[in-house]
């Protein structure tokens, strides 16, 4: 006789994105017949798409969230990434290579998890070696997150007034980076 096996009892908590195993159900008919009760609405992940255009090419970005409004930084940031992907060889007139799509994907995934709803959008700037950097220059602060191609990413931070500056490997210093970004508001 089949055994239900190990029951992994879980509760979905608002704001925590789940694994792909919690994909949206397919009951397109009956879901239209009912509405959940109780104040705690189980958040449902939705898959979203958005298109961006650059230099005659179309890029589609897909992601999952709970259908909330997009933050103000979202469109300028993604458009910035797409604009990098469509740069031709020698885009800097000094023999620059095209931007590495993997670097773009890595940077995009990282920054998406870093920025808060009201964070200012960084500028997305290409590097001649095929990497990119994300930079902010606000409130007397220069912050650059640098993805040199084939090197571990790092960030550089400087207070223009005092000249205080520092440089840190990226992934090991996310809390510091988050606090710097929040000071840019």
């Amino acid at each position: 006789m089949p055994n239900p096996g190990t029951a992994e009892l879980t509760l979905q908590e608002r704001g925590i994105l789940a694994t792909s195993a919690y994909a949206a159900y397919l009951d397109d008919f009956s879901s239209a017949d009912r509405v959940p009760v109780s104040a705690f609405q189980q958040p449902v992940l939705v898959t979203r798409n958005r298109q961006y255009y650059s230099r005659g090419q179309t890029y589609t970005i897909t992601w999952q969230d709970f259908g909330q409004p997009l933050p103000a930084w979202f469109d300028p940031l993604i458009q910035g990434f797409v604009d990098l992907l469509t740069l031709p060889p020698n885009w800097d007139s000094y023999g620059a290579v095209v931007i590495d799509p993997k670097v773009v994907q890595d940077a995009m995934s990282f920054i998406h998890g870093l920025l808060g709803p009201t964070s200012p959008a960084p500028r997305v700037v290409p590097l001649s070696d095929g990497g990119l950097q994300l930079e902010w220059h606000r409130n007397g602060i220069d912050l650059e997150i640098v993805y040199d191609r084939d090197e571990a990413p790092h960030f550089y931070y400087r207070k223009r007034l005092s000249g205080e500056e520092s440089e840190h490997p990226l992934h090991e210093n996310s809390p510091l980076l988050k606090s710097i970004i929040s000071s840019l508001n």
Partner: protein
Amino acid sequence: MSAPPFQNDPSIPGDERLFRRIARTWINWDEQGTPSISSAAFRDPELSVYLESVMARDGREPEDAIAGYSGYGLAAITAAHARSLNQAVARDPLPDEPAHGVVYGQKKRGGIGSKLRDGAIWVKTPAPA
């Protein structure tokens, strides 16, 4: 240990202006339409530049460095400024560009690219987008 590919040339004076073409993708315009340059424009370890004195010797205006490069701007740093950031400034004439030079040295760490950028001035400002 092999010698670095470019050695500092003391015959290039400190006040020599070194011109650098600035691609539009390296330029940010603020709300007032004022362009600023990203440090990304100054990160190449072998940074290509034009030596003003060589261009002047050949009767060329600085803007000649961006002739045929629509939308580009032209910025200048001084040799002294580059050397203050541990960069070598060298001549590197090319068959089709006798004014070509190189600012050679590590720029990826220590904010060198940012500091080179800080010393840059516009020679020819690009038109806003």
